[in-house]
């Protein structure tokens, strides 16, 4: 018969829910209906309807059985609370341990989830790509990876490839002074963008029409918060703002503030073409790169196949234009939008991106925390089997079956995990503001308003309860009544070994976290103290925003220098710690294969002196050599080496704008970017009129006065601009923000894991002391000293802590070694760090164990021996 092919899974489910006879009845009826269906509708439909019918039959039965289970569980829950009350200290320890572990897990998961969510909210996220540019070197090692591309790229891509639905370009204009009537605001970032932006990205408009808003060349679009900043609650549409030296812009749209999990956040947008008119630059120049290009791929388009066509595409467009020489080959590639935040680390990123390595590391730490917390529970619960064993024995004698006992212990664990979850939710709510400050994010946590999160929390609670309660429930319920009632238990080698393993696992994790924290600290210390090749202290940085400042720079410099507290003043296009613009090293008559990528900076006569950059060959720029004015270069040692120049002094170079000049000196290598990157070839060219930064070296003992003087000079020349300054060492430190943050998080993790591990150890030590009360009493009667007893008890645990060190070291070594590879220049891993971590863990463990062991050792034997 066809029915001989019963589906075992389904029947299995049925047998779980009802007894055999009811199952038979149901199966018979279902088979009957199926055979009716078969003769009417054919076997395929019959089978389908059979499956559906099975499901709708089982569901109500399932609901019934759940309701019943809940009714039965009430008693277990009552028992659980009674037990908590009876063993207050133990329960409290357990609760705190679980709650701390859960809180750490929740906080880290929130952070990790948030980092993963970057840019995924765009409706088309899966089809949006950023086009980025690599420039490989002709004869030198290492290519330059940049996030910016030429302006004509986006339109050309749309024209050339049918699979590109749309493309847009951004230029980020830093520090723009925007005026509304008499009020001035300095906008940190103004985006110049194409109208297509709103086809590609999901940026909902509150006012205005996204399709037409950017069509008008004098349009300006604001985010909601910016509109409120300028116009309060008045209607912003049609109002006028002025920027870029008096040009008028009409507000054409207001869009919803972009969420924080975006790799770029726009607040003020002007038309792309308009901006190019302001800077008198052409949007058809393939040689200058400062636009970000995003494209929207057709549904079903294949990005890999598309990427392969880009080489030929570039040959077609780029080689025809004048400014691109060389074997320094340029290639384009695509970055999926949602991967940019975690995986892209190029020159000129729009914001400091995170690193997926940290995210993976944090994810594993979060899971480990959950495990540690569960392990703690198991540990304490099994250690307690001595006490609960008697209860189990009695229960069994009066007829409890094992299943009932298992259910009882599981209920206890579930009640505990529910309480712990409540406590941890409170901890998270309290700690979130501080945590947000630490990681510089705005995470939110509101389970009451977020049903999904609520369900997740319930799921975690259930997992923790079942997982941590499972082993103890099985172990304790298996105790034999005769044995436990006679008082023989807990000494089983298996239970002891397991508990010791758990201690080892916990302390291993703690030690790993400690090692990572220490190594990260060392590395940050190393970064801070490393001789990077330039001075960092007592330098005030001003950003030159106003044209008036640029025009009057000589007067400003003279005015500043005339004050005694100011040592010197220099201007430069970029600051020495972050020279991120590059070109190709060319000289008259250079062959393509001789050329190589080179970073550049434009500076004035005083730059090298002010920053204490050493000249190892030749001389610095000097006013005594009038020829310097027409074109003079300083190159670094790496450039000399890369170019293979035997005598660099006097060689000619061509600046990217076409200016030719002689190399007058060679600079000692300094770190022109952060210590993550190796030192690359660099030239600096004398060009006192082109600068964005003014660096002012001051005397440290008169900082407030000096700042006042600088302010008065600057406001004289650019009255509209708010006076802002930073210290160069702060600018320098900003490059290591991600690491600083990571270090802070790991410090927190180490602290929490120490707390959780200690709680566990404390519980174990107190139980061990309790179990051995009689033994200790006898030993003391026989003449053991307090110290000996203490050593006996402490040794038991501390040897496992030492073993954890041995296990943790290799793992910690691998992780930290890998992390340090992020830096081209890093500390060497020293044994000291590892020893110190173990020592810290050991000391803490010792303290934890001591309190209990000392108590046990000092107890009077008379009390312990008569405790029955």
């Amino acid at each position, binding site marked *: 018969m066809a029915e001989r092919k019963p589906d075992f899974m389904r029947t299995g489910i049925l047998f779980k829910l009802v007894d055999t*006879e009811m199952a038979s*009845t149901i199966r018979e009826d279902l088979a009957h209906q199926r055979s009716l269906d078969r003769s009417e509708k054919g076997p395929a439909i019959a089978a389908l309807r059979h499956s559906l019918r099975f499901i709708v039959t089982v569901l109500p039965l399932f609901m019934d059985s759940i309701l019943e289970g809940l009714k039965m569980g009430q008693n277990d829950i009552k028992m659980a609370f009674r037990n908590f009350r009876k063993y207050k200290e133990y329960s409290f320890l357990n609760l705190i341990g679980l709650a701390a572990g859960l809180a750490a897990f929740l906080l880290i998961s929130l952070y990790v989830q948030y980092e993963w969510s970057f840019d995924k909210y765009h409706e088309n996220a899966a089809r949006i790509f950023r086009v980025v540019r690599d420039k490989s070197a002709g004869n030198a090692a290492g290519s330059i990876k940049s996030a910016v591309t030429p302006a004509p790229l986006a339109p050309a891509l749309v024209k050339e490839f049918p699979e590109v639905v749309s493309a847009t370009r951004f230029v980020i204009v830093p520090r723009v002074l925007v005026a509304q009537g008499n009020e001035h605001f300095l906008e940190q970032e103004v985006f110049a963008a194409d109208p297509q932006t709103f086809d590609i990205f999901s940026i909902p408009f509150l006012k205005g029409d996204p399709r037409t808003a950017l069509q008008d060349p004098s349009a300006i679009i604001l985010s909601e918060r910016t509109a409120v900043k300028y116009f309060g609650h008045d209607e912003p549409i049609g109002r006028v703002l002025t920027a870029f030296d008096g040009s008028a812009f009409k507000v054409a749209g207001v869009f919803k503030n972009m969420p924080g999990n975006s790799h770029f956040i726009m607040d003020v947008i002007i038309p792309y073409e308009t901006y190019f008119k302001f800077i008198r630059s052409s949007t058809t120049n393939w040689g200058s790169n400062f636009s970000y290009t995003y494209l929207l791929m057709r549904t079903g388009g294949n990005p890999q196949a598309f990427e392969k066509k880009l080489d030929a595409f570039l040959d077609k467009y780029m080689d025809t234009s004048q400014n691109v020489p060389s074997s320094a080959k340029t290639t384009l590639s695509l970055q999926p939008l949602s991967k940019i935040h975690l995986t892209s680390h190029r020159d000129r990123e729009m914001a400091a991106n995170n690193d997926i390595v940290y995210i993976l590391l944090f994810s594993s730490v979060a899971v480990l925390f959950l495990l540690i917390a569960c392990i703690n529970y198991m540990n304490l619960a099994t250690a307690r089997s001595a006490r609960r064993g008697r209860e189990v024995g009695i229960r069994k004698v009066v007829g409890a079956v094992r299943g009932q006992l298992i259910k009882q212990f599981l209920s206890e664990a579930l009640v505990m995990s529910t309480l712990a979850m409540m406590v941890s939710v409170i901890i998270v709510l309290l700690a979130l503001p501080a945590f947000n400050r630490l990681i510089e994010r705005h995470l939110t946590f509101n389970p009451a308003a977020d049903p999904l999160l609520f369900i997740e929390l319930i799921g975690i609670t259930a997992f923790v309860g079942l997982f941590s309660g499972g082993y103890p429930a099985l172990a304790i319920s298996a105790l034999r009544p005769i044995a436990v009632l006679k008082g023989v238990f807990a000494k089983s080698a298996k239970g002891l070994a397991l508990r010791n393993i758990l201690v080892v696992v916990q302390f291993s994790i703690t030690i790993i976290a400690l090692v990572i924290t220490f190594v990260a600290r060392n590395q940050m210390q190393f970064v801070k103290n490393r001789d990077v090749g330039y001075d960092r202290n007592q330098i005030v940085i001003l950003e030159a925003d106003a044209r008036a400042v640029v025009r009057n720079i000589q007067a400003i410099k003279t005015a500043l220098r005339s004050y005694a507290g100011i040592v010197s003043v220099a201007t430069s296009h970029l600051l020495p710690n972050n020279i991120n613009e590059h070109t190709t090293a060319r000289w008259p008559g250079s062959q393509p294969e001789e050329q190589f990528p080179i970073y550049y900076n434009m500076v004035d006569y005083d730059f090298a002196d002010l920053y204490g950059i050493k000249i190892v060959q030749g001389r610095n720029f000097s006013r005594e050599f009038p020829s310097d004015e027409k074109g003079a270069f300083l190159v670094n040692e790496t450039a000399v080496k890369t170019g293979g120049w035997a005598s660099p002094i006097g060689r000619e170079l061509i600046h990217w704008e076409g200016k030719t000049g002689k190399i007058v000196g060679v600079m000692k290598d300094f770190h022109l970017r952060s210590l993550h990157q190796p030192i690359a070839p660099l030239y600096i060219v004398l060009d006192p009129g082109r600068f964005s930064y003014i660096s002012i070296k001051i005397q440290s003992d008169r900082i407030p006065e000096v700042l006042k003087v600088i302010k008065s000079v600057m406001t004289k020349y650019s009255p509209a601009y708010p006076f802002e300054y930073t210290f160069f060492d702060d600018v320098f430190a900003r490059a290591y923000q991600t690491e600083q943050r990571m270090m802070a998080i790991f410090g927190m993790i180490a602290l929490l894991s120490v707390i959780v591990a200690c709680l566990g150890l404390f519980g174990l030590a107190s139980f061990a002391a309790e179990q051995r009360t009689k033994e200790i009493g006898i030993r003391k009667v026989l003449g053991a000293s307090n110290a000996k007893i203490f050593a006996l008890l402490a040794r038991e645990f501390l040897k496992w802590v030492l073993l954890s060190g041995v296990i943790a070291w290799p793992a910690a070594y691998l992780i930290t070694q890998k992390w340090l590879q992020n830096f081209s220049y890093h500390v060497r891993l020293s044994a000291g760090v590892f020893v110190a971590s173990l020592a810290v863990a050991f000391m803490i463990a010792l303290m934890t164990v001591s309190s209990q062991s000392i108590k046990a050792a000092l107890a009077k034997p008379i009390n312990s021996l008569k405790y029955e």
Partner: protein
Amino acid sequence: MNFLSRIEETLLLSIWKLRDNAYGITIREQVEKDTGIRWLSGAIYAPLNRLKKNGYVASRPAKEAGEYGGRPRIYYTLTPRGKEKLAFLQTVTCALWAGVPSLRDEFGGK
């Protein structure tokens, strides 16, 4: 005495009416015939299971093998407790309807 849910009451009644011939398929068909509605199996068997657990209904397997899969068919009968319940329900239902003029002619029965 407690009431049963309407479907439980209907099931008890159907089993009583079927006498010796009450098993899964006939019970469902009886309910469908009496109520005039197609019933999902789940709506029948979950309440039937409850009735059995609460001791209103007893089950016993047939002597010979059944039609589907060769397993013996399971027959259901009312326990004394079930009969008592059904009698109680009959009393209440009759009392509720006593003296109510027929509504069927005016509002339709189905």
